[in-house]
């Protein structure tokens, strides 16, 4: 039986009727058409489903939609503002950190989350922060460089 859940996604209020066995990533993609969040492994290993929930980056494929009730969620779509792309997004596009782009939403959200907590991370801290996000294209170097370039 469906239940009504409320979420604040990218500062907008949403009310959605969901089945108990629907994951957050499925509700974001299929019900709300926020397809920036990707589905890769479905088991919390690849990180392409990364969203920020109540300030913490998590694998949305492992969160039931009903568990997200009442929570504040940021997806990749929420990073751009009226002023333009978020600095992390801009750095990714400028530094060649995006090839196929599939890991990018998750990488960018994990990186943004790191910089919110730690504005001057070391290379090791950057690599550790994105260790839950896999990239098959870039070999990670340019992603790390892009995050470094955002540090003042």
């Amino acid at each position, binding site marked *: 039986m469906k239940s009504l859940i409320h979420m604040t996604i990218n500062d907008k209020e949403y009310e959605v009727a969901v089945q108990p*066995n629907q994951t957050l990533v499925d509700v974001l993609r299929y019900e709300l058409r926020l397809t920036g969040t990707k589905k890769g492994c479905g088991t919390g290993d690849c990180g392409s489903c990364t969203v920020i929930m109540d300030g913490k980056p998590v694998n949305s*494929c*492992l*969160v039931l939609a009903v568990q997200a009730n009442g929570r504040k969620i940021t997806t990749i779509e929420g990073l751009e503002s009226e002023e333009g792309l978020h600095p992390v997004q801009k750095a990714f596009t400028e530094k060649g950190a995006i090839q196929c782009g599939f890991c990018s939403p998750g990488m960018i959200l*994990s990186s943004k989350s790191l910089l919110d907590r730690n504005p001057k991370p070391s290379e090791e801290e950057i690599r550790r922060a994105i260790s*839950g996000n896999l990239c098959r294209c870039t070999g990670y170097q340019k992603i790390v460089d892009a995050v470094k370039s955002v540090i003042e």
Partner: protein
Amino acid sequence: MLLPKFDFHEPATLTEACQIMAEYGTKARVIAGGTDLMVNMKRKLVSPEQLVSIGRIEELKKFDSTSNVLKLGSCFTVADIEASEVIGKKWSALCAAAGALGSPLIRNLATIGGNLASARPAADLPPPLMAYGARVVLKKKSGERVVSMDNFFRGGALTEIAPNEILSEIQIDAPPPYSGASYINLSSRSACDCNLVNIASFIALDGPGGTIKSARIVMGCVGPTHMRAPSAEKLLIGEKPTEAIFAKAAEAAMQDSSPRGFAESRASAEYKKDMVRVLTNRTLSAAYKEAMMQ
């Protein structure tokens, strides 16, 4: 991957949760962070009719370090354990294990209770918890009981938790002065990987520069559950902490371990035994270093 169908309950209090577990028993499964259970459900290895989420029960997230006993609610997240200054200072091996678990994303959802209840022989948190002599509180409708971590795992993904019980709290005594512990895990990748061998060692000296008065060595991945290394521990007692005695204990721990070398074990039994020796040696040295820093 589709999840099986289930009825979802989200009790606001532990009493309510125990009520639901008493009603449904084996037909219900508790979910907290879900980082293990969700994967098993997606793989159709587990299909509970009732899912009971305890993630919003405030008392299960408690962190009480006021007395000589650390009391952690079972839903305290692994990320919060890693970040805790108090735990990092007094129970450093637990902090290290929390940092080794999964990935930063997983750690934000995963709970200490879940890492125990999922009973995986390669799990990161059990070795340091057993090395510190931790206990768990199992609560049910009619009361609660306290179980030592040494008696918690029954083998084959079974734990002491009865179908109508909920793991509510983990209790860890403050380590005595002149004691130290260390946790090291070996895996192919530094994140998002299952451990090949993981070891936690704890030693307590009877004074600065004294002899070893107690020792606990816990091994993961080398048997059906996490296990102690009794002959290694025995030969350390009463000895001065030297490189030689640590090497001897490491050899004994190797003999105590019983890896089975299945295809799914990720490494051969010989390699695992050898790594037990290496990691026991390293964790004993590191535990001694910590004991001397006080």
